[in-house]
């Protein structure tokens, strides 16, 4: 989890333990605890727990999304209102992810490279969106940007409102993934580049950015995956106007309310595919870039 608060300037958290000792320990463990019977029981309990809680619901969802056959599934996903909701969701999520990429990196930069009074408070504030319940995020934003806005900004039931809500709940992703990399970054390379006459823009583009890029991209991807499925924070400020501000999760809820569960299941499967695909691409890309780094090092 990335919800841990990392003090400014603190050394990066220790690397995750390598797989090697784990493998060795599982060998020793086999000799240790109970008989094979107890272990089989434990594995059975784990299997049953994960199946009952996670796998079976998702299996039921997938199977029942085809209740009306493949054509029924396709019709549900390509219904004009469903497509419109998908379009709104993906569009706003992409924009929010990009805003996060820029502003998140900037905030991380200011938290690591700058020094000003109150910096620790600002740093602690970053985790707030993760700790705050999503419905509270919705209410909090409404109190400033809603119908009774004290500053006269009314984002209620607009795509701007959606964007602000999503930017709020996804704020920590990029900041918290870039910050540790920035702390670790070797500043001597930057100084060498400067002494060779490189301008700040060049240094940032050629030296800093390439090192930060993997963290920025992974944070942005996680923010995007979170944004496409978000519900609680947009439910009050979004307005749920079909084809305007209705996001996919709201459309799915509507399908359950008008009693068309197969359509709800089908669109849910589509939404799940988007999040899974995003996370899958991120993981593959991370593995590939790690391998590339290992081969050049």
């Amino acid at each position: 989890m990335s919800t841990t608060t990392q003090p400014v300037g603190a050394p990066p958290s220790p690397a995750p333990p390598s797989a090697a000792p784990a493998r060795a320990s599982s060998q020793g463990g086999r000799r240790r605890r109970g008989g094979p019977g107890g272990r089989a029981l434990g594995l059975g309990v784990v299997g049953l727990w994960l199946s009952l809680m996670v796998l079976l619901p998702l299996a039921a969802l997938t199977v029942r999304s085809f209740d009306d056959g493949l054509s029924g599934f396709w019709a549900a996903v390509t219904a004009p209102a469903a497509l419109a909701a998908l379009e709104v969701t993906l569009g706003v999520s992409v924009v929010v992810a990009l805003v996060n990429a820029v502003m998140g990196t900037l905030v991380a930069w200011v938290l690591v490279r700058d020094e000003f009074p109150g910096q620790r408070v600002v740093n602690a504030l970053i985790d707030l969106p993760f700790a705050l319940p999503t419905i509270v995020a919705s209410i909090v934003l409404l109190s400033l940007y809603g119908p009774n806005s004290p500053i006269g900004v009314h984002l209620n039931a607009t795509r701007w409102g959606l964007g602000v809500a999503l930017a709020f709940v996804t704020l920590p992703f990029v900041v918290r993934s870039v910050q540790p990399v920035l702390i670790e970054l070797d500043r001597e390379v930057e100084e060498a580049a400067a002494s060779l006459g490189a301008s700040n823009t060049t240094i940032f583009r050629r030296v800093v950015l390439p090192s930060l890029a993997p963290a920025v991209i992974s944070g942005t991807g996680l923010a995007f995956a979170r944004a496409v499925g978000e519900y609680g924070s947009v439910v009050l400020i979004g307005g749920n106007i079909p084809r305007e501000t209705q996001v996919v999760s709201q459309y799915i809820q509507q399908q359950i309310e008008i009693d068309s569960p197969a359509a709800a299941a089908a669109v849910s499967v589509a939404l799940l595919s988007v999040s899974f695909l995003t996370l899958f691409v991120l993981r593959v890309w991370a593995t590939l870039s790690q391998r590339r780094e290992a081969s050049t090092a």
Partner: protein
Amino acid sequence: MRTSRRATLALRTLALVYLVGLLAVPIVVILWRTFGEGLGPFLASVRTPAAVSALNLSLLIVAITVPLNVVFGVVTAIALARWRVPFRGVVQAVVDLPFAVSPIVVGVSLIMLWGVGGWFGGLEQSTGIKVIFGLPGMVIATVFVTLPFVVREVEPVLHEIGTEQEQAAATLGASGWQTFWRITLPAIRWGLTYGVVLTVARALGEFGAVIMVSSGFPGVSQTLTLLVHSRYIDDHNTYGAYTAATLLMGLALLTLLGMTLLDRKRTHR
């Protein structure tokens, strides 16, 4: 890279304006709206029968979810860290799955499994236990979204401490249970506590998955988050929604504080 004084100030201002506009000002405004009329109206608003029962229901769900996640989460973590698990990669992915699923999709999945006409829909007819639109459904939804926390906090600790002490205990004749209670559990306690804190925070704050499987009656099946929603949408009681949200925010801030303190303990073990 040395930025000029002006550039530094510009970057700092830009970052702070973004954070202030997005985080700080909205929170100050909601606090001002909540407490602007004094403490009395706030207390009255969070002490209505519906609010008290919502708080009780939220705490009840937490009280059921946490033990389930502790017991099954620790067993899962031990299995992943210590035993030979078939299809380990798949099991690891299944544990992480709840993080990737939209809360609304969680709700729909549970309806497809436990609801009327679902795979296990017959349970309600044969036993009379109402899962969807009842307490069990809300608990299952909460367990789904919080399932990874304990496993993900305990498993790395198990890897880190290794098995030497456990083996030594076994050599000295300790049974599997004795080893677990005397060696393993004390070693994982901070990781476990951290996982529990994350679970509590998420369980108190879960909204999307719970609203899908709750009947949402005030005083009966409304959690705190559902209360915020219904006060704003159904009752047009904006002030009541603000106060309930502030109460939830207070709980969240306590959790955040606890996390920060625990994190220090956990890393300086």
